[in-house]
């Protein structure tokens, strides 16, 4: 019988195994078990949340055990690179993820769940279902791919988008070279090791976990936009500001001193009863085939005088649901685990969704006493069409640009839009509802089989031989139909159907030999191994134009009548590696680890094909020393440190070494014969080869302290690290005089990162007899600095958006990646005297008569800072305006248990980052396209009687001194604190359930993203982006508030 130490109650479900064999079982509801064992065997009792216990079998027929609740995690066994280690023996920087905690996040993506839960990881996501977030371990490591390496049951992959979060048994994050260098060439971005669930000894267990929820988009006027009348008022104001003697004569608003809203916007400006609005004139065929048919359309569209709330026309509350069933068990012959997962998250944005299905089968078989065979396999299907947010032109991007006076539909129920007649000037935005409706038949389906089979044999007691053959087979298909448009000022007139498919496979064959032995106080584990990785894939795409009907049952690549285009691509690369590791401890006090790996990659030429990646680490458990033995409040104290080199070869194309030639119909073919429609084929150089590219090396040092206090009730882990990434593989832009051929990737750039990871955990705090508390907090900081970019320019720019060709983001030596760059606004020009005075100063400073301080300076426009102090504003005065990398991010988990109730709260925050709010470029400047404008533009822009304004003077023109160049007006504080998750659960008393055969039944309610505290004026401060160009908001798909109810049931 097995009982609980604290209460004396029987413990059901405890695993009982005969040590060194595969025999085992589990306790029944009364804590009883039965098992065949002989005297001298040792029984191992283990149970989740309890310290396991070993009891030798004596003479009697019964062996009882009393298990104590586990406090602290020192004895936890964690999976690291090709090995398992006790947590207290770790010498590298390894974060152990609290899986129970992260699976509370109601999302189908494991990577989203990691946000704020583990120190040292930054996760940046969005509200779009299925959009894989950016995951960065200890900051940005390269200009290219920063995705960590994921090792799932021993199989390396770059992608965990389809892993069922319910299948995860444990997850470890290897953050420094000491722990990660064993993965050599692929370790530089950090390694996340995921182990999926196995069957446990005992009877068949069935679990069912499900939730259903409602996602609610943000309410209110999210972008602070004007209504239709205000929009007209702003136009009058701006025209007057531009020309004080303006004569109003407007296609929509008439010619009076105050603008009057028309009854119709198409035909522009008409009043009710005008013969031009006679419905019999109406002519629109929304499914027209011939582009020139559009010319004959006659649109009749009423004005929406209240104003259309475009955001809420495309964002609606949406349901989300998830179901997971698993069946598992084990006996001395083996174990099995089977699960089925279904998740369906409808996007709050129309026609976006994520549907996922996955099945997993993990099993192992004990085919002989010392030989085990097993497999882990997951097959998943994802149906997830996505939109490109954060860029101009998405449905979201248009929702803050389409004018409010435009209704969603015209008088006949076809779309209303910006198409204008009679000079209505409705702008060039596109109807956001139409954009979202027209993607309704688009699909993006992917599927993947991921897993491995393995054989393990114990040889001569001290050796374990393991071979694993694993990998992934995947394919994806997409198809989209492009409808002709008719409602906008600028319409796509050609209908077309595009279908794409890709498929590929890779395998990893790993062989390892592990040696483990204890000699007195010496404990040695050593491992050698080899690994081969082979990766292949193909992709295919085709487009056909001109369909007779647009029915999705009819449209395929062969049923169109127009131009057919197609294309395909292939890739192939491989890695071959040898590696070894030694872990040694003396007297449980002095710990030493060493790893080395030699990788060969097909991506590099003969000269530098192979790279060596060594690392050493050491630990000293000071608390074991005699002088600390008596300090009762200190349970454990360890200092550890490591140094090593990790590699990266993601950021180089397979054929980088070769100079290549190729062709492209658009850029290298030419109509030499003057036919007007037939091209002659031509070739060009397409890539300049670099046979000398070699591995990126990420030189990493780490020092850390792990401490455990009050018998493990409080644990702390803190790490300081610094990384120098050398020989960074980068494709620097080269002088145009070399042509525009794709330049080679070279080892040229350098970067530095340093930071602190901190985590604090408190467990088993009994506030009262029945009220217990657990808490953990994480803190992640990193400082990134670019050290070198190329032999040539010390910077590269990105993101010009709608500016004058100078860029918003400058990645420059000495600065963090993705820094914002431009002119610094220091106020407005409030009087002509100010301008004249500045110009006089400029004349003096430059010695040029007629010199100006600032080009196009005028009343109410921005005054820029003369950053270089040369007396006038030139492009040299551009400066760094902000940094989207936070100073730190933090997470706080709190869990309270009271009898059968449990309450959890998880808060997450980032601090000290900036966001470039490009939305305000569109909405705060009247002249920036004739679109929807903000309240700020009308009510808080500079006027002669309102100098203390937010926005500059509203004018019908563009200037260097307002909207033409990137300036600090658009930079905002991006810090925020968000209640990611608050939940309340109730577990039904076991006694009541036993009778109907249920072990556990918990119901809960939850609210995700309940509130966010931020000064950011945009819709959501969580803004991702590219690797070197992030933090730019031009219409984010915001994270949504979610309300859920769920159950966890176990049979």
């Amino acid at each position, binding site marked *: 019988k097995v009982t609980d130490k604290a209460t004396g109650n029987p413990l059901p479900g405890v695993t009982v195994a005969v040590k060194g064999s595969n025999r085992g079982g589990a306790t029944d509801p009364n804590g009883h078990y039965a098992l065949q064992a002989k005297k001298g065997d040792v029984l191992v009792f283990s149970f989740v949340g309890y310290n396991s216990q070993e009891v030798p079998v004596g003479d009697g027929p019964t062996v009882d055990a009393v298990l104590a609740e586990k406090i602290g995690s020192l004895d936890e066994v964690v999976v690291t690179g090709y090995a398992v280690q006790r947590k207290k023996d770790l010498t590298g920087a390894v974060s152990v993820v609290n899986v129970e905690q992260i699976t509370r996040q109601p999302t189908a993506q494991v990577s989203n769940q990691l946000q704020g839960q583990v120190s040292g990881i930054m996760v940046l996501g969005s509200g779009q279902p299925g959009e894989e977030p950016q995951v960065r371990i200890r900051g940005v490591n390269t200009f290219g791919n920063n995705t960590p390496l994921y090792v799932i049951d021993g199989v390396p992959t770059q992608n965990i988008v389809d892993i069922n979060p319910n299948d995860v048994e444990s997850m470890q994050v290897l953050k420094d070279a000491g722990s990660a260098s064993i993965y050599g060439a692929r370790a530089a971005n950090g390694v996340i090791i995921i182990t999926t669930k196995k069957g446990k000894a005992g009877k068949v267990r069935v679990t069912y976990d499900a939730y259903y929820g409602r996602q609610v988009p943000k309410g209110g006027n999210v972008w602070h936009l004007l209504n239709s009348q205000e929009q007209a008022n702003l136009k009058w104001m701006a025209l007057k500001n531009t020309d004080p003697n303006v004569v109003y004569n407007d296609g929509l608003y008439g010619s009076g001193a105050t603008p009057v809203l028309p009854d119709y916007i198409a035909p522009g400006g008409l009043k009710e009863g005008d013969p031009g609005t006679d419905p019999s004139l109406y002519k629109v065929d929304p499914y027209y085939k011939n582009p020139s048919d559009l010319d004959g359309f006659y649109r009749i569209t009423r004005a929406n005088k209240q104003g259309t709330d475009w955001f809420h026309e495309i964002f609606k509350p949406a349901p989300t649901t998830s179901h997971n069933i698993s069946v598992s068990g084990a006996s001395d012959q083996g174990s099995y685990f089977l699960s089925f997962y279904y998740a369906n998250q409808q996007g709050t944005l129309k026609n976006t969704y994520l549907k996922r299905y996955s099945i997993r089968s993990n099993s192992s078989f004990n085919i002989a006493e010392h030989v085990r065979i097993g497999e882990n396999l997951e097959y998943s299907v994802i149906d997830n069409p996505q939109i490109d947010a954060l860029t101009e032109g998405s449905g979201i991007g248009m929702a803050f640009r389409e004018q409010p006076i435009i209704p969603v539909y015209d008088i006949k129920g076809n779309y209303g839009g910006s198409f204008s*007649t009679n000079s209505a000037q409705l702008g060039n935005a596109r109807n956001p509802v139409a954009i979202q409706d027209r993607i309704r038949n688009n699909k993006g389906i992917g599927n993947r089989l991921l897993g491995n089979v393995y054989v393990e044999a114990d040889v001569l007691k001290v050796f374990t031989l393991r071979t694993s053959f694993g990998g992934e087979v995947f394919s994806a298909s997409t198809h989209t139909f492009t409808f002709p448009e008719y409602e906008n000022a600028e319409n796509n007139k050609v209908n077309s159907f595009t279908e794409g498919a890709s498929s590929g496979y890779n395998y990893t064959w790993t062989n390892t030999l592990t040696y483990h032995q204890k000699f007195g106080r010496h404990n040695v584990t050593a491992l050698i191994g080899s690994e081969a990785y082979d990766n292949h894939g193909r992709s295919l795409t085709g487009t056909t134009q001109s369909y007779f009907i647009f029915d999705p049952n009819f449209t395929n690549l062969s049923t169109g009548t127009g131009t057919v285009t197609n294309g395909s691509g292939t890739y192939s690369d491989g890695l071959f590696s040898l590696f070894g590791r030694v872990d040694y401890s003396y007297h449980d006090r002095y710990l030493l680890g060493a790893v080395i790996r030699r990788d060969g990659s097909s991506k590099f030429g003969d000269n530098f094909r192979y790279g060596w990646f060594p690392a050493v680490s050491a630990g000293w458990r000071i608390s074991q020393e005699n002088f600390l033995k008596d300090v009762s409040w200190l349970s454990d104290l360890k200092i550890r440190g490591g140094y090593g080199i990790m590699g990266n070869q993601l950021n180089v194309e397979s054929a980088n070494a*070769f100079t290549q030639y190729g062709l492209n*119909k658009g850029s290298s073919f030419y109509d030499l014969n003057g036919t*007007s429609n037939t091209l002659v084929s031509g070739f060009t150089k397409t890539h300049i080869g670099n046979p000398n590219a070699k591995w990126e090396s990420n030189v990493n040092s780490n020092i850390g302290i792990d401490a455990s206090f009050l018998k493990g009730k409080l644990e702390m882990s803190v790490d300081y690290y610094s990384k120098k990434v050398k020989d960074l593989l980068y494709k620097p832009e080269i002088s145009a*005089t070399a042509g525009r051929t794709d330049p080679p990737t070279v080892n040229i750039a350098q970067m530095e990162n340093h930071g602190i990871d901190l985590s604090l955990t408190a467990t088993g705090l009994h506030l009262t007899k029945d009220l217990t508390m657990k808490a953990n907090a994480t803190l992640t900081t990193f400082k990134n600095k670019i050290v070198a970019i190329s032999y040539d320019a010390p910077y590269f720019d990105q993101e010009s958006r709608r500016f004058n060709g100078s860029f918003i983001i400058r990645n420059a030596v000495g600065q963090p990646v993705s820094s914002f760059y431009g002119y610094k606004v220091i106020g407005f020009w409030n009087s002509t005297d100010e301008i004249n005075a500045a110009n006089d100063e400029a004349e003096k400073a430059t010695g040029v008569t007629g010199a100006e301080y600032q080009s196009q300076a005028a009343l109410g426009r921005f005054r820029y800072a003369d950053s270089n102090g040369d007396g006038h504003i030139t492009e040299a005065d551009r400066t760094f305006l902000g940094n989207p990398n936070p100073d730190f991010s933090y997470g706080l988990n709190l869990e309270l248990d009271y009898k059968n109730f449990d309450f959890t709260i998880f808060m997450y925050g980032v601090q000290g980052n900036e966001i470039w709010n490009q939305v305000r470029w569109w909405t705060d400047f009247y002249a920036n396209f004739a679109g929807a404008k903000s309240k700020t533009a009308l009510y808080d822009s500079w006027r002669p009687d309102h100098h203390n304004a937010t926005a500059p003077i509203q004018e019908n023109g563009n200037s260097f001194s307002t909207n033409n160049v990137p300036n600090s007006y658009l930079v905002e504080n991006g810090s925020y604190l968000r209640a990611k998750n608050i939940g309340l659960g109730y577990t039904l008393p076991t006694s009541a359930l036993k009778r109907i055969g249920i072990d556990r039944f918990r119901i809960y309610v939850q609210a995700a993203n309940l509130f966010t505290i931020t000064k950011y004026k945009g819709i959501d401060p969580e803004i991702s982006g590219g690797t070197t160009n992030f933090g730019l908001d031009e219409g984010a798909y915001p994270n949504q508030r979610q309300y859920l109810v769920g159950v966890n049931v176990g049979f």
Partner: protein
Amino acid sequence: ILVDACSKSFLERSPQGALQGSDLQNKDGIEALLVGSYAALDGQSSGTTALNGGNPWEAAPSNWIYGSVAAGDAHKGSDATDQPPVSQIAVGNFDPSNGFFNTKWQVLFEGVSRVNTLLSLLPDATGMTDAEKTGVKAQALFLRGHYYFELKKMYDKVPWIDETNMEDYKQPNNVDIWPKIEADFQFAYDNLPETQSSVGRANKWAAACYLAKTYVFEAKWTAAKPLFDLITTKGQTSNGLPYGLTDRFEDNFDPAAKNNKESVFAIQMTANDGTGSIANANQGEMLNFPYNSPFGCCGFYQPTQDLVNSYRTDATGLPYLDDYNDHAVKNDMKILSTEPFTPDAGNLDPRLDWTVGRRGIPYLDWGNHPGRSWVRDQDYAGPYAPKKNVYWQYNQDKYKDPNSWAPGSALNIVLIRYSDVLLQAAETEANLGNFGTAETYVNQVRTRAGKPATAVYKYTNDATPMGGFSTTPAANYVVAPYPAGTFATGGKDYALKAIYFERKLELAMEGQRYFDLVRWGIAATELTKFFAYESKITTDITGGKFVSGRNEHYPVPQRQIDLSVSGSSKTLEQNQGY
């Protein structure tokens, strides 16, 4: 050892979907590289991008921004903040970090690079006779001459990269490259045949015209004259048509009449060529169509009132060389399309109505231009629409390419047309004091302008513009040649002024004027007058000015200077004044 041997072959992988240089060192491969060198003429890549990945219009081979908007032919057009880099160029604020300059530079050097790649592989090519190699080389050098000519007139300080120093591509730009350009065209002229198997290829006479144009840009009048004498007597097109002016001015801007006798060298454009994009369909002009019209986009490149006024003629059919703005042509500013408007009734040169779309006049066969409703923001950029780049409705299914959000067309960009050659010849003769010959050349151009085929006529029925034209001219067209002896009487200054003005009228909206104004040395005076006059009409060019000592050349792109670091110093230097 076994493991290593195994891994060696495992790790040897060939590039996928690519050729090596040696695959191309044969007749077909070289020919394909030559076609690739022609293909860079349009500056466009696949999809809606220029060859450097920038926007198509930044690299438009017509130079509509750098040659016409900058020179007062046209406003940028569209909405105020649509393409602010063009606004900056329009007001003379040439910022070296303006990305447009970088795009143009990169795209032209891509052309140079393609030629150099070809030339480096050519000597060892197999299966070709020396004569064939020389033929290829002559075409290649013609193209390289063109790319460098463009670079030279844009940026002045240009580094020279050829097949001998390709690997060492960081060359200084402190040496004048005109002699090298002359050498490339001279080789082409000496070695190209008079006619070619394909009309798109450069022939001997195209090389002669380009060489003469080079001399004109260098003001080497005596070197230019003998070439012009030959060209005007013996010149012919690649397809064997003796050079001449088409009777119908519009033939030069009508894709159905492309590669005619006036087309000395043109960039060949296609429509609906199977790419599913407008990459080969005059993509550089995609913005330059009336807005809220059958063309869809984008309302750019709106001709100026100043340009329109230039077409005013006096009672004798001659232009007002100095005071044309005192004889302004009536416009429809501030008048809604629903309100009545009667077009100007005064004397006009008919070339106006093939160059500018204005209210009430047939816009090809698209109907009478409706005025303000086809204009995005009249207050901002005026009432007019471009016309030379616009295709016709009746044959649009063949020559229009709808495969983008803005239209493409198979309308060629004519880099040199014969009337341009004649006016250069006139300029050469006038500079050499041969006023009679100069006047004859100018009068050839004016005579064509006065031919009935060059007038715009009213529709037979305004409601069905494709139904054909009547015989009633759409406006009061009066144009005549200069009476014999006018140039001789007026003297050199007068002759040159008349020639310069004729270039403005004949070549307006063809990306030429800015470079002409600069080489004539009158950019400051002309543009100062222009800004003063035009900025009273629209709001877009307020504060525009020509900065003497700087604006004569566009800046070497800042990015390229920054990328030119060799050792610790920059190999490229900036132009004066930046």
